[in-house]
């Protein structure tokens, strides 16, 4: 994949502003992610990373500015709107229902019903079909699990995050946004989730990832968006800059 070629961004934000009372969380922020790339977002606390990601995923509506999908203006009033454009988000706090099993979690909100009157009149779920599709998605990602009927709460933190990633990969057609996917995990588990993210990206899906963990960011990202004081101050190539440069830009000690 020639990721350096300048192409139309899949998802773009132009001049996004968001105020909470007198606090300006985003101050005319720009953002873009191109086809096939992993774009990391870094920034100090209060730089507006989370607000930016929420605007991109439809979780909040910006006061000013524009969001474009494939160069066409798009309006996200809720996460459901963003989903319709093929944008899936993996939220930080492991957004799964612990007592439901893996299949049920993967299809939560997008359940498949049986065909015929059992589905139309009795609204019966097609559990076989959902199991088959969920198993396919998991094996595509080489994500091994004892049983798809296991309640998600019986899984380790990394496996749970894996289920959340697999779910977004199964339904995303444009972009996956991940908010701190390795924040709550140990070293081994983080490695497993990063592997999974890479596998999803190998399928061609661009990924936006927020992380505080610099080694993870430099390990996985193709480009790094640096957010400072509510704006984009730089987009760097991790092969050309090192972590101390990134931190210096992040804190305003260095400008490029």
């Amino acid at each position, binding site marked *: 994949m020639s990721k350096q070629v300048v192409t139309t961004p899949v998802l773009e934000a132009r001049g996004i502003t968001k105020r909470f009372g007198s606090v300006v969380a985003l101050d005319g922020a720009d953002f873009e992610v191109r086809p096939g790339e992993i774009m990391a977002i870094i920034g100090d606390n209060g730089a507006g990373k989370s607000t930016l990601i929420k605007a991109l995923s439809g979780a909040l509506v910006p006061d000013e500015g524009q969001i474009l999908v494939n160069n066409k203006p798009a309006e996200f009033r809720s996460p459901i709107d963003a989903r319709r454009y093929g944008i899936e988000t993996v939220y930080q706090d492991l957004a799964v229902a*612990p007592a439901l099993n893996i299949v049920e979690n993967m299809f939560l909100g997008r359940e498949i019903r049986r065909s015929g009157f059992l589905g139309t009149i009795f609204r019966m779920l097609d559990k076989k079909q959902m199991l088959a599709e969920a198993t396919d998605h998991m094996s595509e990602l080489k994500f091994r699990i004892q049983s798809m009927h296991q309640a998600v709460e019986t899984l380790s933190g990394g496996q749970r995050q894996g289920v959340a990633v697999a779910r977004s990969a199964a339904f995303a057609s444009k972009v996956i946004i991940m908010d701190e996917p390795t924040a709550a995990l140990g070293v081994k588990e983080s490695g497993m989730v990063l592997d999974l993210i890479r596998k999803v990206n190998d399928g061609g899906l661009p990924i936006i990832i927020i992380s505080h963990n610099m080694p993870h960011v430099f390990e996985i990202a193709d480009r790094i968006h640096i957010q400072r004081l509510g704006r984009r101050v730089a987009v760097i190539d991790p092969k050309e800059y090192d972590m101390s440069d990134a931190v210096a830009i992040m804190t305003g000690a260095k400008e490029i």
Partner: protein
Amino acid sequence: MSVSSSSSRTPIRDILTMPIVGPVIALIFATIFFSTQSDRFLTGNNFSLIVQQVVVVGTLAIGQTLIILTAGIDLSNGMIMAFAQVLMANLFVQNGVPPFLAITLGFAAGAGFGLINGLLVTKLHLPPFIVTLGMFNIAFALTRIYSITTLRMTDSAWYTFFGETFSFGGEDAITKVTYGSVLMIFLFFVAWFVLSQTAVGRRIYAIGNNPEATRLAGINTDRLIIGVYTMAGLIYGIAALLQIARTGSADPQAGQNANLESITAVVLGGTSLFGGRGNVMGTLLGALIVGIFRNGLTLMGVKSIYQWLITGILVILAVAIDQLSNRSSA
């Protein structure tokens, strides 16, 4: 439940960790125990009687289960039932409204109370405990303001049908079952089907588990919760008709303890008060366990006040065992 189970997973372990197993075992042991104490206990007609005795609380407990699964609670269900009961009786007897219409309006009143509960819980973000505690008092007052007389309702088949019986079994062992018992069990099956086989059902569990995750999955959680409270209210309306059919009268004083009795059935059935876990069929078993203890102890000649004592012990025991088994495996 059990984090360690991924390494040693067997079908037997799966079955033993199902929340329904506890109530089943309790039911079997209680049945065996009371069979040894009284030879009148283990007969078809006695069991039919036990079911009849739990018909009203059992039906109310279906609605209670739905609400508890969403991590809510309903303290108002008995009073909503009392109001629906008095309304459907008075409209017919005092105002000459045709029975079918009067009963339908009683159902609608139940659903209306549920709808208001649901709206207050979702739109005003009030705790379900507070909302339904308030509604408990409001429905109690409205019932008394509306009517304080107990009406005999045995003149219309519409109101007595679910108290009537049909028989089966051989000549020497005829068992009589009321249509009301059949309706209650049918409603339990409908609730089980919806909860386990449809998307709405799985979403009800998901809300109780993690409301934020459910909302982020694109589900309109407010609408779903309002729907659950409204449906529960409708079920309380049906319970009102069953109450009239069972006693032959509409009594404004009925249902005053029904909220706690229905919660008892839900808890004994293994449903978590924190929401998101449990099984409506467990609630049926929970209601039957209470019924079996009351009935068995009565047959043994134990004073009724001891039945309350034992019900209390059972509830605490059931939750304690549940907590301990979760802790040891977690």
